[in-house]
């Protein structure tokens, strides 16, 4: 544990408690609302019961947050505002980050109440930019980084879509469009288990275990993740061999095939949960880390200043949100997306998980939900889904256009409020 934790635990000023509480609340919101998108598909297709989905999601969200969440957290903590400007206004930084947290939390809470789809990532980025631009001037914003982030909000759903298109076409060629799709899904299913567990292993093992004081170089990490992948493939083979053969359902040649795909979809839903944890924990913990560091005078730019215990708090907050509220949202989402059959869910989720994990490793905060939407559209473009309602594209654009300025204005208000109340 570092000096920052000491600062929190011993003689912590009230602002730290407030920041901690708001960060926990953000993490709770993320767990309560966003995770449903990762696991709701599996619940909807009957692949997992709600109870199991919660347990599985909790473990993987936490793992993603704890092992891979540091990169994006660093970006949110110190990538958006320019160090030189922050150095000049160091005393204001805690109030600004606090204001950003409060703004994003209020916005998300309000949006959830009114059933509006608002991205946590967009809220927190908009909030930090809003506070920074007003409190420190437009020059204080790292516009290069911001354009990279906003660019990724366009490209990441696109990448997810292209990947999903390719994965679905590959699945069609390898398994679905064959004489014996059922036998083939059992034969090649373990291959997908190998890839997915191997990729999760790689992003965790390669520079991920620093939190546990284990640091593997790339060759070692590659070797170990191949081992993890082989274990995953073995597990997949066992699970797939257990799929009960109910015999064919008349008029539905693909019934058994989809039943087997259920097992692959559980796997990819887990990958999405892991990826989501790795990217979204930053939305809660990035600002908290900034507050803690400025108060404890560890410094703004210090490398690797996001300490494991912060990710632990964020991961715990997400799990808490999942356990106390997430199941309701999951139930709703699950009921609504039964059209996403296991084989489609598999393709879309695998594509989304790969895209998000890649963004997480590059330290780019992206919207999990938007990437999932992009991936589903990708499967649709491959003619894999009966009918998709394109109205959602409009909803996304509107929520985009609205979220950024609202979050910015709210965070400016909260910034002045907190500074007025708390600054001595």
């Amino acid at each position: 544990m570092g000096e920052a934790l000491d600062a929190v635990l011993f003689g912590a000023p009230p602002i730290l408690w407030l920041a901690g509480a708001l960060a926990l609340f953000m993490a709770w919101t993320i767990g309560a609302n966003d995770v449903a998108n990762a696991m709701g598909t599996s619940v909807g297709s009957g692949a997992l019961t709600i109870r199991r989905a919660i347990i599985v999601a909790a473990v993987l969200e936490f793992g993603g947050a704890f092992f891979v969440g540091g990169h994006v957290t660093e970006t949110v903590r110190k990538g958006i505002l320019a160090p030189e400007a922050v150095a000049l206004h160091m005393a204001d930084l805690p109030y600004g980050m606090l204001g950003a947290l409060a703004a994003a939390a209020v916005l998300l809470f309000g949006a959830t109440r009114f059933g509006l789809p608002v991205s946590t990532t967009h809220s927190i980025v908009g909030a930090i930019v809003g506070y920074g631009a007003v409190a420190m001037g437009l020059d204080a914003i790292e516009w290069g980084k911001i354009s990279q982030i906003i660019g990724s909000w366009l490209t990441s759903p696109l990448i997810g879509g292209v990947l999903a298109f390719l994965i679905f076409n590959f699945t069609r060629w390898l398994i679905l469009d064959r004489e014996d799709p059922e036998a083939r899904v059992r034969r090649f299913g373990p291959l997908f288990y190998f890839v997915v567990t191997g990729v999760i292993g790689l992003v965790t093992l390669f520079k991920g275990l620093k939190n546990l004081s284990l640091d593997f170089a790339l060759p070692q990490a590659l070797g170990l993740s191949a081992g993890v992948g082989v274990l995953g493939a073995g597990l997949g083979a066992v699970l797939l061999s257990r799929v009960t053969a109910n015999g064919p359902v008349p008029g539905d040649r693909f019934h058994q095939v989809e039943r087997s795909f259920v097992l692959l979809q559980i796997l990819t839903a887990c990958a999405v949960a892991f990826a989501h944890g790795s990217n979204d924990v930053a939305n809660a913990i990035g600002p908290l880390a900034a507050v803690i560091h400025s108060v404890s005078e560890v410094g703004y730019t210090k490398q690797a200043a996001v300490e494991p215990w912060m990710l632990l708090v964020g991961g715990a907050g997400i799990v808490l949100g999942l356990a106390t509220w997430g199941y309701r949202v999951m139930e709703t989402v699950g009921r609504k997306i039964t059209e996403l059959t296991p084989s489609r869910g598999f393709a879309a989720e695998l594509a989304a998980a790969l895209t998000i994990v890649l963004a997480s490793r590059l330290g780019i905060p992206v919207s999990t939900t938007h990437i999932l939407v992009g991936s589903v559209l990708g499967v649709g473009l491959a003619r894999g889904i009966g009918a998709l309602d394109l109205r959602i594209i409009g909803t996304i654009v509107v929520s985009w256009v609205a979220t950024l300025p609202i979050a910015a204005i709210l965070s400016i208000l909260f910034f002045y409020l907190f500074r007025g109340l708390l600054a001595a």
Partner: protein
Amino acid sequence: MLGSLFARSPVRPLQEHMRAAVACAKQVLPLFEDMAVQRTERLAEHRARIDELEHEADRIKNEIRGHLPKRLFMAFERRDMLEILDFQDTIADVAQDIAELADLRQMVLPPALGEPVLALVRRVIQACEHAERVIGELDELVETGFGPHESARVESMVAELNQIESDTDELSEAAKRTLFALEAEIGVGTVFLYQLIDWVADLADFAERVGNRTRLLIAR
């Protein structure tokens, strides 16, 4: 947000509609069987059953049209789908027309015409049933993402449907020849019997169009 992305796929309703339309066509056989044995008192009964099935088809048709906003992104062209729906609906409509005329005019088949016409009706119904099987493959097509293997399977089904339809052309020509040979005996009734035979042949025609349009839908 993810939930609102999925719209109800029109595939199942389209298949239900086809089932109702083909059920109308199938009722034409008992109608003609009774006409062949001069049992006119049962014609109204057959007509009532066909009317009922036709209403069911209409109901499904309106439901599909009502749930098909332009913003939907589907695995196939909206236009192809609506045309298939129209052809399917015409099958039900023509069956209804046949029953209406037969009942209103209390028509019977002269003994010599019985076998040729019944042979035609049976083959026509086979065409309709085959078209129903083609439409029944639509969900498999979506499941395989219109993969080449499944597409080829449906294409060969459509080719078979075309074969059945050309059989019905020959059978209807044979029936009409027999009819004209009896013209002196039947008199003005010839015109109406000709109309009935023509309509029966139309059923196979529309069944074939359902199949051909499905082929276009695959080849998008």
